């Protein structure tokens, strides 16, 4: 087998050295009844070209020939080739967690740079070196807020990603966390009056997403003021961090948690991604996940080490801030390389392109009779559109034009019938967007000769 460095004669000589007759003897400690008789029912062995063919066949049954207007927590952006060239260096991708700092300075320095970039971008003082993904980072932020406030109630904006809310609920279930949801108003933003009513002296944290699940920007300073008045902490979740190239950072928040997938990490059917968590310096000892800090060696040279490790499970065991061990280093490295390539100006220019394309698409759809853009508050590269007719029919018609037209919001928000969440990044061409608008127009034209679907709501946006 091509991956195994020892030959049959190597094995013979090794057995001789340790005074054993056969390899089977090494497994005699496993009681015979527990040993596997016969062989596993598995495919293979396959040669390299056969493996390649197997996965090429799988890759062919994909949406790769379609223009995708899906976002909703996983964003399609161009990935400069430089990223994979650097990630593919064995020194990076075949290394372990940098516990042995002297021979892991490459990973450590890159993670220190990641922490710096994420702190700058989010307007926070410190950031950790990554968590599993945006959903678990948001959940860890909620748990962190509960430790900091010693309170056990969490308010989630209903416009927080539905799957992020599910993760917070799964983790909270056995910890007796009380979880309530705050509704949105007609602008698509969190309803501040309702939020104020939901806050009490037991509330540890409020979690809002901005841009929220509808793509709409939230009024963070106003929310922060309300939340802080009740003694709770404000957590801002960010699923599309590219927005921060143009949008004011949520500096009024206590914790910013989110997903860095947009930064050079492939969509890859949902993972692996890189969660991030940034906060204020005073909260750092309750922060979960690995942290890289600057240190000096015995000669006074600058180096980097994993630091504040007494928060972590391998030292603190059941009293640790989290059970997290593995982070997403290689994905965080991809994000670091991506952000360094873009730099200060590239980030802004790319964010501007995303905004321009999304504006163009929204205006095109808004101009179609019977279609509308229900939420008036500013968005970044995602927005909600109400289809002229049945949303599923529209999506099917778009698919015929090789366009995946967005996410039918009814799946997560039953009240938003015929509402689509549309994401337009730099990857969508004007030509594709024009084609999309034509399909809307065709549906609108057809609607004039057909009765509306039974029970379709008249309101542009429903309140919770």
């Amino acid at each position: 087998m091509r991956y195994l460095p020892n030959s049959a004669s190597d094995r013979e000589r090794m057995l001789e050295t340790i005074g054993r007759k056969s390899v089977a003897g090494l497994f005699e400690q496993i009681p015979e009844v527990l040993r596997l008789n016969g062989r596993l029912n598995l495919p293979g062995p396959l040669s390299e070209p056969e493996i390649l063919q197997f996965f090429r066949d799988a890759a062919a049954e994909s949406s790769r020939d379609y223009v995708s207007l899906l976002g909703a927590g996983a964003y399609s952006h161009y990935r400069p080739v430089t990223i994979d060239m650097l990630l593919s260096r064995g020194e990076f991708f075949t290394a372990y967690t940098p516990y042995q700092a002297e021979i892991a300075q490459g990973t450590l320095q890159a993670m220190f740079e990641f922490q710096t970039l994420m702190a700058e971008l989010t307007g926070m003082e410190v950031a950790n070196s990554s968590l599993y993904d945006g959903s678990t980072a948001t959940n860890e932020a909620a748990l962190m807020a509960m430790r900091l406030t010693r309170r056990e109630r969490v308010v989630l904006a209903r416009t927080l990603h539905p799957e992020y809310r599910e993760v917070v609920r799964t983790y909270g279930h056995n910890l007796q966390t009380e979880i309530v949801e705050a509704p949105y108003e007609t602008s698509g933003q969190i309803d501040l009056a309702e939020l104020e009513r939901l806050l009490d002296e037991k509330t540890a944290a409020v979690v809002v997403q901005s841009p929220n699940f509808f793509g709409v920007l939230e009024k963070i300073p106003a929310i922060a003021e309300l939340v802080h008045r009740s003694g709770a902490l404000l957590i801002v979740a960010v699923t599309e961090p590219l927005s921060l190239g143009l949008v004011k950072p949520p500096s009024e928040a206590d914790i910013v948690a989110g997903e860095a997938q947009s930064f050079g990490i492939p969509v890859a059917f949902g993972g692996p991604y890189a969660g991030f968590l940034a906060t204020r310096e005073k909260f750092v000892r309750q922060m979960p996940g690995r942290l890289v800090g600057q240190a000096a060696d015995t000669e006074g040279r600058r180096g980097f080490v994993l630091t504040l490790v007494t928060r972590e499970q391998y030292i603190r065991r059941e009293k640790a801030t989290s059970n997290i061990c593995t982070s997403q280093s290689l994905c965080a490295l991809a994000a670091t390389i991506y952000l360094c390539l873009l730099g200060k100006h590239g980030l802004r220019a790319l964010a501007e392109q995303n905004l321009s394309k999304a504006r163009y698409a929204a205006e095109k759809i808004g101009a179609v009779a019977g279609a509308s853009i229900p939420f008036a508050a500013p968005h970044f590269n995602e927005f909600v559109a109400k289809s002229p007719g049945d949303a599923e029919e529209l999506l099917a018609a778009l698919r015929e034009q090789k366009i995946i037209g967005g996410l039918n919001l009814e799946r997560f928000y039953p009240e938003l019938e015929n509402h689509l969440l549309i994401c337009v990044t730099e990857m969508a061409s004007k030509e594709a967007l024009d084609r999309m608008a034509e399909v809307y127009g065709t549906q609108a034209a057809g609607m004039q000769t057909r009765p509306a679907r039974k029970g379709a709501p008249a309101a542009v946006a429903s309140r919770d």
Partner: protein
Amino acid sequence: MTRKNSITQARTHVTRNEDLIFERSSPGKSGVDLPALDVPAADPKEWLGEEFYREDVDGFPEVSETEVIRHFTRLSTWNYGIDTGLYPLGSCTMKYNPRINEVVARLDGLATDHPYAPESLVQGCLRVLAETARCLKEITGMDAISLQPAAGAQGELTGLLLIRACLDDRDRRRKYILIPDSAHGTNPASVTMAGYEVRNLKSNAQGCVDLVELDHAMTEDVAGLMLTNPNTLGIFETQIREICEIVHAKGGLVYMDGANMNALVGVARPGEFGVDVMHLNLHKTFSTPHGGGGPGSGPVAVKQLLEPYLPTPMVEESPEGAYRLNYDRPKSIGRVRAFCGNFGMAVRALAYILAYGPEGLRQATEDAVLNANYIIHQLQDAYELPYQAPIMHEGVFSDRKQAARGVRTGDIAKRLIDYGFHPYTTAFPLIVPGAMMIEPTESAGRAEMDAFIDAMRAIAVEVEEEPDLVRKAPHTTRVTRLDEATAARKPILCWKPSGEAAEGKAKS
């Protein structure tokens, strides 16, 4: 070229002394040129308004593509990876990461499909998930599996949540989880996050679970036992069936930490042991890269009784051969992560399984166990082996002999770096004083292991003759030992233009 070389004393080149990327920045540069915008440019200031418009992203670097390549290439050379050489890090299973896995995971389609795309357009991705699940069920002998957990620790937590959901359905709430004192630190931390309390179980003189102790501890308010098999000493729990029976008799369930599954693939299946739930680490046993600390993947496999509680969604195959995601699982514990888990890791794990096939996987396991025995056997006279039971894929020495000379496991580990090896795992498991945990995996060749054995023996001699040499190691690296205590007392966690990080630079 008659001019005499004026360099009399060579200065360290930047390859050994690369600045932070922020310190290489100078205004007006970027590493990307964007295509021209094909739609009218929106004025962000006007559209976003004063309320939302950000004037500037402070502190971001401005560097060219060339500088980015040089910067990260130089950083990479300061790392030690599996590709560099023997990486006998116990409990971490640092095996070769096949290159074809990286290629197939990046294929257009697999790397680009969106998790919310219509199921009819993502059949390839769903098939990969379904096939990976099928293979892992076959390897573990379990009935059902979820690929959603993002890493081993999340798999542990998921498993505990499954146990909890099942037992809560069955009877009154139980409070405790038993954990042997040899367990990984993630085990007790996961127990706390599942809302249980930890009860520690003392190991017996052979380093295994003590049945009398277990029988005593396994009361009606204990939800279950979490154990690693082979355990963290590399010893197979020969009484695993009896252990499971004791737990089951009192209405508890058994969780097996599959971190050490590399000792069992193709040789024995946990499904036959009596365990109810286990996790796998695709980044250990199934060769997905560790990546300098992730991404991992921690699938959770269960027996039928826990299947209804697995996270949503589950991949299913229809009789017609089409795949779908089933979200309608009323008893499910819910989601532990957005989307379908670390899909890219499933692609790599499947490619690994396909490359080996059933016989090959068994051969890999045999090699891993033979390699560990080969190394441990030849170091027994130089280092103390506190537990004499036969070992499987890894072994644990104690530094007791060397500690008498004032040299500890961490020092010997650092000295190994000077010999060109990555250290073994230090100071774990906790039940061995000054533990030195060695796991060569099947990827270690005989010649390389011989060199490692020579190095370990040479260090043992150095400890006797010149202990300071070992205590101050490493001597050959870019930086010497770093002052972790000061770093933790006054943490500097990011670079600031005129902050302490910049001052540090001046000293370098």
